[in-house]
């Protein structure tokens, strides 16, 4: 029977390299539309649709779109129009959009940029629809940081997209306001989907699987703005047990493999009706920046290796940002489904080992680091699940001395 399973495993390996998982590029006849496409991005008038025909297109430098209004870049379909930056010699991003309004990117695949595949900054109105953004070699530290990366934007819509292989976050929205991330798939990234320092964000209907961490909602210090008002619901967050391959020093390098959802120093957040399945360290983690900074300091980030791109790194001077609140707060967790076929917390992460010690034979569903805002003296956390959950309050501030499994104190009133 064992050999049968191993055989099936091997067969699965072969099957998994089919287009569903990784796109095979061997033998592809690449063409270049570098000059004409960049020219079109410069000459485009408001209301234009730039059509990208079916085919495989190779680029040697970044594409840039700046200062445009009302533009659609429309491919012939995901996996039909393929823009590859595997031969990139110049620029970090694949496609960079800045200072624009009402831009729609739709129906194409973009892959293998040196840095981020698509970065959009200072833009009002950006839609990503049925865009596949990936690194075709699978998870690797050398991959770019973000697959889809709107930052300092308003009115962001990301739907029916696929993000694969980002060495930071697959779908990442940073320092933005009014954001919908729905019905996407993210896998084989360090973080599947991440909202960072963003406000009024709805993340729903997505499937985040086989990442290091499935869905992250983070607030980081020393950026242009802070986040609040976030809803995460109706998502499937499963099997996020991939070894962490983020470059050392990056904030997501601190995410333990086996993390379903993670909230870091965020407030006004609701997590409901999600299916949180088979994540081997923790289903839902709630942490303060203090914990992350401490973990990062211990792991001795390697100096001298600097990846391409613009990923957020751990800031050990975060207390200098006097406007920043490093503690999560105002959190509602309700009606999620938890299930785990993993019998034990994983040994692949330090937190997994800790949980194995404190909660053997069951991977914790909800973990809070137990570090409270000293001024406030409490956390406003309310948990109302339909099923029994394994809860851990780590009391990390006191070396886990008063670690508690009692979630009843956080029952919604």
């Amino acid at each position: 029977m064992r050999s049968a399973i191993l055989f099936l495993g091997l067969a699965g390996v072969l099957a998994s390299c089919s287009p569903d998982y990784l796109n095979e590029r061997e033998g592809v006849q690449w063409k270049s539309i570098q000059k004409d496409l960049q020219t079109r991005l410069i000459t485009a008038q408001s209301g234009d649709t730039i059509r990208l025909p079916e085919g495989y297109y190779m680029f040697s430098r970044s594409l840039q779109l700046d200062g445009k209004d009302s533009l659609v870049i429309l491919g012939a379909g995901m996996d039909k129009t393929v823009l590859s930056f595997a031969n990139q010699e110049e620029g970090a991003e694949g496609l960079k959009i800045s200072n624009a309004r009402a831009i729609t990117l739709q129906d194409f695949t973009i892959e293998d940029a040196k840095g981020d595949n698509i970065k959009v900054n200072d833009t009002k109105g950006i839609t990503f629809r049925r865009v596949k953004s990936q690194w075709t070699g699978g998870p690797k530290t050398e991959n770019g940081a973000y697959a889809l990366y709107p930052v300092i934007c308003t009115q962001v819509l990301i739907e029916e997209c696929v993000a694969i292989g980002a060495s930071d976050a697959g779908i990442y929205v940073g320092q933005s306001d009014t954001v919908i991330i729905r019905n996407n798939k993210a896998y084989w990234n360090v973080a599947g989907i991440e909202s960072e320092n963003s406000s009024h964000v709805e993340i729903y209907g997505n499937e985040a699987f086989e990442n290091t961490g499935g869905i992250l909602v983070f607030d980081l210090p020393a950026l242009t703005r802070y986040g609040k008002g976030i809803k995460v619901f109706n998502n499937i967050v499963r099997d996020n047990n991939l070894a962490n391959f983020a470059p050392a020093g990056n904030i997501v390098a601190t995410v333990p493999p086996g993390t379903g959802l993670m909230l870091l120093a965020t407030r006004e957040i609701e997590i409901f009706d999600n299916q949180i399945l088979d994540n081997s360290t923790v289903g839902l983690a709630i942490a303060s920046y203090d914990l992350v900074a401490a973990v990062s300091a211990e792991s001795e980030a390697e100096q001298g290796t600097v990846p391409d791109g613009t990923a957020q790194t751990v800031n050990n001077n975060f207390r200098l940002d006097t406007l920043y609140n490093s503690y999560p707060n105002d959190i509602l967790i309700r009606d999620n489904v938890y299930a785990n076929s993993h019998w034990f917390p994983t040994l692949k992460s330090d937190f997994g080992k800790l949980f194995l010690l404190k909660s053997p034979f069951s991977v914790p569903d909800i973990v809070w680091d137990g570090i409270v805002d000293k001024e406030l003296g409490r956390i406003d956390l309310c948990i109302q699940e339909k099923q029994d959950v394994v809860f851990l309050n780590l009391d990390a501030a006191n070396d886990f001395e008063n670690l508690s499994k009692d979630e009843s104190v956080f029952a919604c009133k």
Partner: protein
Amino acid sequence: MILKTSLRMKVYLPVSKIRIFLGTLASVFFFLACLYACTSEKKQNNQVIEEVALDGTDTKDIGPATLSSYGFFVGKLADLQPANDLIPYELNTPLFTDYAHKLRFIKLPEGSTMKYHPSEVLDFPVGTVLIKNFYYPLDFRQPHGERNIIETRLLTHKEAGWEALTYVWNEEQTEAYLQIAGDTRAVAWLDEQGQNRQVNYSVPSVTQCKGCHEKSEKLMPIGPTVRQLNQHGEANQIVGWEENGWLSEAPPKHTWPQVPIWDKAETGVLDARARAWLEINCAHCHRAEGPAKTSGLFLLTSETNPLHVGVGKPPVAAGKGSGGLQYGIVPGKPEESILYYRINSSHPGIMMPELGRKLIHTEGVALIKQWIEEMEK
């Protein structure tokens, strides 16, 4: 090891659970094997990638297709022999662009003048074209010998403001063609020591032009300020311009500002030469009206606050560009200074300036190193 573990488990686990367990093991194995199978290095076949047209692409509304159609030059185009109405000019300390040499001209509309400005670029009338030819002598020890012209950049002052266009020269050096999307050209030369040098020279796209030529969100020329045009020595180009009536509203000559030539010690003290180099390479962005205004690092030669020049200044949102260093400049310690770290890098995520070079300007960096080393603590 997997097998051993599973056998041990079998002893005391119900069969259904073994199945789940083995299933999990198999999926882990499957996953690892897949990682291995799928992450092995992809072979890049050396196929030549054909450039194809994208329907609807048209640049005729942007500008003339060829450089020759402007009529700037007489005779053979590659000789860059200016027509009578072109005014050649040079800068004391020019921008470093991967060691390219430059031949610059001003085309003034007939009967008009450039107005003197004490600190900003000259006030050029509408209709002015600034013409900058970028070329590499094949042997830098013979700068006037055979050369390879790469691109000719035009800054045209239109009613609506300045506009940037780039013309890229063909291999035969018979014509240059409008190329707003930018280009990459492999260039080789012998340097002053007779060493082989090469670079994949980058011709900027129109979008990238704006990256440097932006002041208060408008496109502007950078180089031709009086302090850069006011030459050292006997023959001074702007004296001639004033005599010809091309320059107006100029105060007496002795009041004209001047920056030194960065690598000619006889033209200025170390501090002045370092600041001139920093200004021309950095201050188009690093000034209160420039794209890098949020950094708080201001590198115009007129900046007098040491903090704004970087001394003891912590980085703002530099990310990994800070190299883990605490301050822009630590007097006496270039290796602890972010400014030195960034000008001495060619990594796209670290290097400064971000655009316009791929190589490190070794000689310029040495000047800044010495300047920081000798800075009073």
